């Protein structure tokens, strides 16, 4: 095997690695302006995104495809460490999209920001780790890839080095992250002890019908806890809100829109195979006198999903600050995503994947918008957004669309993803219907706090002193400069998100069809 044919499939990853090194090099030679460094990050992630989309079989870009045909979704190719699945490629696309939007928006960060090379370099480095997660087929490879992302994000959260809140958040994230990594690796070592291998596909096919050793249960238990920290599942979520709140808001957009999904995809990778291997659908976990691993995992993950949705929503309801509200809502959204793996059918995985895809545009862009609005001098409280919708209708409507999408109102992408997810749970029947009911009740609950923001933005008069001179020019009306106050990069990122929210909401077939096909392959290969 020559170097070219080995490196070819990894072109997106190599591109990101080169991008990271180049950005740090720029720092050394003294090019530190946000625009220039950011442009590199935007270009690198954009190009990598094109490669991944080409690999997914998007015909007009076929000349960019890097992975040879036949290597995607084929069991036994690649190596024991990595495998190209189309679902993994879709997750790569989602991760790259999140980074692309965040770096695009960050082009509009104040140029006196000294940390630009650090910020963009770490952003691209974290994305590299995420891309590796998406192709992992070995437990240790997976955990190491997660670690690459985690280390970069710890630094990213505290990169300003001035704001004590960011530093506290970074420290908190680091301690919790180290703990969760330890737990994950401990779980992995127990599984290695039980199975003698760390290959994810091989693990699933040992044991099974004849009952499960305690060692395996313990191993999966530690893995669930370790990964649950990463995916911000309740009751392992407490760190996330402080970190999301304390981190610079653009970093929060990356954490919520991108890096958190790493944990969810790790759940897909680790738990799908054992769930499918002893698939009894709605069977009892104690069938035939032996403990069946599949139903136990499904019930555990289902309970975690319901807990995460409910607690996240209730706490979001109680928040007075915009970022904290969005952070708790982000936690509850992780619960919806977990439904996909708890149900474990191809439709459910497709629904969860679409939900993750949607979340980039809804939550990621919402944090980007909050960052922009904060730069205008609007305070952190939800009440500080009073009258924003009438004073800046374009920004108000964009934010409203994101919130309506999060709430699952039709004709938005958030509705489609929840619809597919809950339909899949109902379609699986048995006790999964209750997951759908819990999810629907939760999305009803979530309407309370999203509608409250709409109410504050559109129905309440602005408090004059919250709008410093220059932030809001003159009166109101659509004739005002639309989104001009955001800068081109941020406005473009938000515009892309809004278009995606509406376009996929109205006609989801192209995206949904691709995701459904990928999920079917994923289940077929995993089984």
């Amino acid at each position, binding site marked *: 095997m020559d170097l070219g044919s080995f490196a070819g499939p990894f072109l997106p990853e190599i591109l990101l690695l080169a991008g990271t090194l180049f950005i740090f090099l720029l720092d050394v030679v003294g090019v530190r302006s946000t625009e220039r460094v950011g442009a590199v990050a935007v270009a690198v992630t954009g190009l990598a995104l094109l490669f991944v989309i080409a690999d997914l079989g998007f015909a007009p870009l076929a000349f960019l495809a890097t992975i040879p045909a036949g290597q995607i979704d084929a069991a036994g190719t690649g190596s024991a460490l990595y495998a190209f699945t189309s679902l993994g490629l879709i997750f790569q696309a989602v991760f790259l999209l999140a980074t692309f939007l965040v770096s695009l928006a960050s082009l509009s960060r104040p140029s006196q920001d000294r940390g630009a090379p650090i910020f963009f370099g770490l952003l691209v480095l974290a994305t590299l780790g995420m891309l590796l997660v998406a192709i992992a087929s070995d437990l240790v490879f997976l955990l190491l890839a997660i670690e690459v992302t985690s280390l970069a994000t710890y630094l990213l959260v505290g990169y300003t080095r001035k704001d004590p809140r960011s530093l506290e958040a970074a420290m908190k994230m680091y301690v919790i992250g180290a703990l969760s990594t330890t737990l994950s690796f401990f779980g992995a070592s127990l599984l290695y002890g039980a199975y003698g291998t760390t290959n994810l596909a091989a693990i699933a096919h040992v044991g099974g019908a004849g009952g499960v050793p305690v060692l395996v249960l313990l191993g999966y238990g530690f893995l669930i806890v370790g990964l649950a920290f990463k995916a911000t599942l309740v009751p392992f979520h407490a760190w996330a809100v402080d970190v999301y709140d304390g981190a610079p808001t653009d970093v929060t957009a990356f954490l919520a829109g991108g890096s958190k999904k790493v944990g969810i995809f790790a759940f897909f990778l680790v738990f799908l195979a054992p769930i499918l291997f002893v698939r009894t659908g709605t069977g009892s976990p104690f069938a035939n006198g032996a403990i069946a691993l599949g139903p136990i995992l499904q019930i555990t993950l289902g309970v975690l999903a319901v807990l995460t949705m409910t607690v996240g929503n209730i706490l979001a309801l109680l928040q007075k600050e915009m970022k904290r509200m969005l952070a708790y809502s982000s936690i509850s959204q992780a619960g919806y995503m977990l439904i996909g793996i708890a149900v474990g059918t191809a*439709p459910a995985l497709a629904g969860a994947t679409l939900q993750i895809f949607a979340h980039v545009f809804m939550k990621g862009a919402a944090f980007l918008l909050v960052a922009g609005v904060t730069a205008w001098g609007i305070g952190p409280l939800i009440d500080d957004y009073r009258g924003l919708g009438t004073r800046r209708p374009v920004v108000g409507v964009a934010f409203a669309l994101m919130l309506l999408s999060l709430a699952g109102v039709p004709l938005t992408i958030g509705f489609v993803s929840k619809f597919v997810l809950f339909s899949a749970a*109902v*379609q699986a029947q048995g006790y999964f219907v209750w997951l*759908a009911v819990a999810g*629907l009740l939760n999305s009803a609950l979530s309407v309370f706090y999203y*509608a409250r923001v709409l109410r504050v933005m559109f129905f309440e008069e602005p408090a004059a002193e919250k709008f410093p001179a220059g932030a809001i020019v003159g009166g109101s009306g659509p004739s005002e400069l639309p989104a001009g106050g955001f800068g081109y990069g941020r406005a473009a990122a938000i515009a892309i998100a809004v278009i995606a929210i509406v376009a996929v909401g109205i006609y989801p077939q192209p995206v949904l069809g691709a995701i459904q096909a990928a999920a079917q392959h994923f289940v077929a290969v995993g089984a």
Partner: protein
Amino acid sequence: MLPLISLILATLVLGTVATFFAGARSRWVALATSVVFLLEVAVLFVNYSGWPGYNGALVPGFSESESYSWIHLSWLQINYTVGVDGISLVMILLTAILQIATVIYSWAEERRPAAYFGLVLLTCLGSFGVFVALDILLFFLFWEAVLVPMFFLIGFWGGPRRRYAALKFFVYTHVASIVMLVGLLALVFYSGASSFDFSSVYAAARSLAPVPQTFLFLALFFGFGVKFPMVPFHTWLPDAHVEAPTGGSVLLAGLLLKLGGYGLIRWAVEVLPNGFHVSQPILFFIAFLSIVWGSVLSLSQRDLKRLVAYSSINHMGIVLLAIALDSSLGLIAAVLLMFAHGIVSGLLFMTSGSVHHTFGSRDIPAIGGITPTTPALSTMIMVGSLASLGLPALISFPAEFTALLATWNGLGYWVFVPLGILVVTAAFYLWMMQRMLFGPPKGVPIGAHDVPWYEGVGMGILVAFTVLFGVLPGLLVNVIVSSPIKGWPGP
């Protein structure tokens, strides 16, 4: 053949978008859209040939049907399927009439007119969609699409307690929609229907066992019933109706409540006959509760708008009763009643809005003898009240008469409950007219003059239709009876 329904949808979508961006000219764009909409609905009416039968149309039993693939996965077949039958046609006519009347009535809206008229059109667009959708997702989509514009109409243009009312409206109806969505999804997946289309769900669900049918029916009934609104889930209605701007109240009472009734007939009663039979006692109980409690509440109101709002609960209770009878006559009565109530309550809400503009108050005891000052407005109030109490030759009479007849056929002496309530409400309306319209002038500000032309024209349109269909109810009945409802004996 022209895809007439898609054409109307396109008209409404384009008109709505254009209105949002038309700035000061938005009212003209909205009016033009409404006129075209009304004309297109007229064509739809003229083209409707009654029950086309299973003659190879895309959706058996519906005319003007169209179907295109929308979401197409191995386990999820969702189409853009639309079509009309007699029931939806009558509701569509109601939508078109109320839209044009509301646009003209609100002509002088000054607070962000582009957004106001755009939201009014969006509400009507959503309602039209609900009435033509023959696919579960499409239906739910339009159902929810009505919610958002109404939320903003109440919350931005409403009265003093508008924020509370808007939030309460949104949360109540959204929670109900979600229960309904669970029911609709379960309907598809438990019946094993091959797609989300009405025809395949209809074919698959009717053969389900009674127990799952009952659960599904109750879930759907809850979703539709909150919109109705049925007691005890009616408390969002007075808040929303009273705080909404006049145009919003007209659409709320005229259209949004009808969505519940229409949905119940189309998606629950027809599709789940066994579940419906098991649940009939519950429906009767809630219907009688709504009739009695709604009128008790409305009798205790001093505010003209509140009076109209609470009497809606009472009227929609009769609609529920007529549906619950499970007879052809009952269904005819229910559809007629919904049409009549849509027109008449719209008229009454407009008059109460005009009373508020002219006299600065809607307090019935505080205002009196307004006829010499505002003859046109008094006439409208009188027509609306007389129609509401069921005077022959006005639209409510044939509807209420049919409903009472159907109740007598189905339940015997129980008919005296709605009948007695009707007599009491009639007396109350007469007393209200006596106090407000006649007698010595009271609470009339200096310089008060009659309603402006646009308010007069808006109300006049509704008065014209009240009389037209009151004299010739057969125009509607002939269309309704040709609907392909289960066990339909025909005229």
